[in-house]
């Protein structure tokens, strides 16, 4: 009802805009106001860009000093040396950038893929069917949805530590699930899955059922409806949810830092923490900045291109019951 009045209002406004010039929002913006607003918005843009320009500038700094001494956008003699150093070996740990990236990719990609795959099935069930136990199961999902990954860390750490393969004669530990990318991945899926289910369910709820009903009348069964109608329509939502999962996996710190002890399993974020945390020592800032850029840039660009869908999805998922 209210949407009807709104659309009528829009039409009226549009008609008036055509006839009487844009008297719509009334008073034309005076030059003084325009300039004042421009100054304000420019200042805000400056505060937004400042940290980003700072890290770009740092990463280009070629001088063999640990710390910058003045503020410049392009430092004298800018070069990509820091990037080259970082790609060779970011920290004193004997692992190169390619291996770190591969580990991060395996974790982020694997967990995002698995959780979306499992979640879309559950989301379809929750969104379309009324069955006994639905409310209880959904409540279960919502309850763990709000739990951050730190909140299940003690149990997961202890439990996964029990899956150990030892050499029967020497009793040396050959494989410890906790101390492997597999274990970290499991722990991450545990945190990612409820969000993926909820986000996808929120999206599926917004798809009208008419298409599916038409297909059912034509004799399609539940699986056909799911595969031929729901899945194709849900591709954008799956992409966004998958990307959000990927992003959280890519920047995951808590679990991997707690679980992993072998340098060969380290991820990008772990090494980044090694460059700034309590063990940083005197890593040149140019390297740290280059590492930050290399870690953040790819995901940031994808996020930027998907941003419109992400915000819409998050708020829809939040509102829908």
């Amino acid at each position, binding site marked *: 009802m209210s949407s009807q009045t709104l659309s009528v*209002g829009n039409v009226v*406004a549009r008609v*008036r805009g055509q006839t009487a010039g844009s008297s*719509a929002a009334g008073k034309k*913006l005076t030059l003084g106001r*325009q300039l004042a607003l421009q100054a*304000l*918005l420019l200042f805000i843009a400056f505060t*937004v*860009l400042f*940290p*980003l320009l700072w890290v770009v500038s740092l990463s280009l700094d070629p001088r063999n000093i640990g710390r*910058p*001494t*003045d*503020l410049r956008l392009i430092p004298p003699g800018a070069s990509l040396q820091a990037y080259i150093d970082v790609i060779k070996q970011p920290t004193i740990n004997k692992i190169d950038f390619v291996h770190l990236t591969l580990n991060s990719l395996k974790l982020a990609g694997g967990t995002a893929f698995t959780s979306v795959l499992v979640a879309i099935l*559950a989301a379809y*069930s*929750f969104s*379309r*069917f009324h*069955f006994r136990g639905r409310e209880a*199961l959904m409540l279960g*999902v919502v*309850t*763990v949805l709000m739990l*951050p990954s730190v*909140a*299940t*860390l*003690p*149990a*997961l*750490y*202890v439990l996964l*530590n029990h899956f150990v393969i030892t050499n029967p004669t020497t009793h040396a530990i050959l494989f410890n699930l906790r101390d492997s990318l597999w274990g970290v991945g*499991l722990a991450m899926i*545990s945190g990612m*899955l409820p969000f993926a*289910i909820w986000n996808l369910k929120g999206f599926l709820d917004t798809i009208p059922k008419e298409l599916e*009903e038409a297909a*059912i009348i034509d004799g399609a069964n539940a699986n056909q409806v799911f595969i031929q109608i729901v899945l194709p329509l849900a591709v954008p939502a799956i992409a966004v949810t998958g990307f959000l999962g990927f992003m959280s996996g890519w*920047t995951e*710190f*808590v679990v991997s830092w*707690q679980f992993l002890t072998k340098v060969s399993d380290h991820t990008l974020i772990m090494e*980044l923490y090694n460059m*700034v*945390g309590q063990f940083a020592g005197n890593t040149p*800032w140019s390297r*740290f900045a280059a590492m*930050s850029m290399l*870690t*953040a840039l790819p*995901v*940031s660009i994808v*996020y930027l291109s998907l*941003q419109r869908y992400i*915000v819409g999805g998050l708020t829809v998922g*939040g509102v829908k019951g």
Partner: protein
Amino acid sequence: MATISLPSTAAASRPGFWQRFTKGGTPYFYLIPAALVMAIITFYPLGFQVWMSFTDYGLANLRITAPAPNWVGLQNYIQIFTNNLTIEGFNFWPTLAFDLWWTFSNVIFHVALGILIAVALNTEGLWFKGIYRAIYILPMVVPQIIVATVWANMYDPDYGAINQGLTWIGQWFHIAPAVFNIRWLTQIDPPIPGIPLTLSYFALLFCNIWLGWPFMTIVATGALQSIPKDLYEAADIDGASGSQQFWRITLPLLRPAMVPASVLGIITTFNLFSLIYFLSGGGPLHATEILLTEAFRLVNEQHLYGVAAAFCVYIFFVLLALTLLINRITRATESYDV
């Protein structure tokens, strides 16, 4: 239910229609993978964690061949509750209070700035709108953990961008550079006498404001664009001033979009582990510790898995209470008739 001739009954018959179609347990079939996965790696660990919280599970019990931990009953819970743990800087209640204040102060700024900037950007006839919108999104798209490390580096007292920038501004007013050797993240004395908030809290606040308002602006912009313009015209005709229009039209109509966004903001800010751990590290002297950073310390530094489990059970209930409280407040104030 069987009449098809009337268009309105199609909608009414929908549940029955779907029910017939779902015979044979199809919905359960689709739920099996998720149910299995969650049962094994979410709910079982949660149950295990509750059991752990009643034991003195520690480093010594970690090996498979190690003896089972001792049952200590409610000891962990009582020790946390009465602040009786002999761990330096560990204190549940001040941490909880700080976490709540941290959340509240941040979200207020996010929402207020988000709305104001969205309204400014929405001004008709404004130049370069598209450019500003493109720039303002940037804090949202950069991974938080990277933002935190970059800001930690900007707050460096000797070489950081903030102090250098302040010194640069200060020279125009003939202020000695030494004044701006501000120890943002390590100064222990509170900057405002009488208020027990360290400088690092303000440093975190600035960073998180930078991080948080763009999301609110995007949400508010979307809502602003769906407010019909003739409401403002009518208000103009009735002689309402600009600020009256803002309070009587803009704000009430933004509300439905801003409430869920704020709820999301509250929960994320309350749990903003990565920012705090990477920026201030909870310091100085644990003054900016939130519940999650404390929990992580109990596991990562203290290896007190039993205590950590109890602590996490507390976190669960705090979050539950917070969510229920927010729901109640937002529902109680929901009835805005447009």
